[in-house]
């Protein structure tokens, strides 16, 4: 049991470092295409973290929806707006705006990490058990049926809205 715990921790930290590095590259890289590809690293890292948390269905959905659909959508968006392939120096706001952004980000992180460490000091997970897909579907189709239906309507509305907005007439 202890060996498993150590292995989980090592995996967590390796994936976490990868994700943070990828996320920093997404917001700093000078190449739009590379930003989309670094985003793949972050999102697949998140899927791996979900597996570590024994949430198999969310992990699979993350891979299918984010890596399969949203990244492809981003790549289409990049290509349709004829972004410069290669480096492009005109992607960021001016220096002062970047400093303000970094300040806000750091302040936010300080606040959140203070409250998280204060609130959940060393709460442990205990023995994680696999959260089976059957339980998830039971929950969606009983307790959360109404939000699920609302979400379906939202997706339909977004589909029609996107077509109406992007259509040429």
């Amino acid at each position, binding site marked *: 049991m202890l060996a498993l715990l150590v292995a989980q921790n090592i995996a967590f930290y390796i994936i976490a470092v990868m994700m943070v590095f990828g996320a920093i590259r997404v917001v700093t890289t000078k190449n739009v295409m590379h930003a989309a590809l670094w985003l793949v690293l972050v999102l697949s890292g998140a899927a791996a973290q979900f597996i570590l948390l024994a949430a198999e269905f969310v992990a699979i959905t993350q891979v299918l929806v984010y890596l399969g659909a949203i990244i492809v959508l981003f790549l289409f968006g990049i290509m349709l707006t004829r972004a410069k392939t290669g480096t492009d120096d005109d992607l960021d706001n001016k220096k002062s705006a970047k400093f303000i952004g970094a300040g806000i980000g750091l302040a936010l992180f300080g606040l959140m990490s203070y409250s998280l460490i204060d609130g959940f000091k060393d709460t442990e997970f205990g023995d994680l058990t696999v959260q089976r897909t059957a*339980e998830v579907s039971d929950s969606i189709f009983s307790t959360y049926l109404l939000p699920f239906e609302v979400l379906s309507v939202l997706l339909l509305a977004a589909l029609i809205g996107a077509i109406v907005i992007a259509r040429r007439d």
Partner: protein
Amino acid sequence: MFLNQFLLLAAILFCIGVYGVLARKNGVLVLMSIELILNSVNINLVAFGAYWHVNDMANVTGQVFALFVIAVAAAEVGVGLALVLLIYRNRQSINIDDVDMLKG
């Protein structure tokens, strides 16, 4: 594993996403930063869900809400990219700074 290590990872990703939204002016890159933010929220939800699940086996609320967030994020990206395409078609650029007609 501590609950906090997942929450802090999500906090770091959230703050990087906030920085990206503020520092980028390319529309597509702003949308990518928003994806980072939504994804970090998902990590939080699943972590809390797993934490609850240990004590109450029938409770998978965290996962269900993470799935809802994924679906809403997909809808958001669809509409957002449609808007970016429209801006590009009208102005031949997707710099957010150029979209300033609301300024008097």
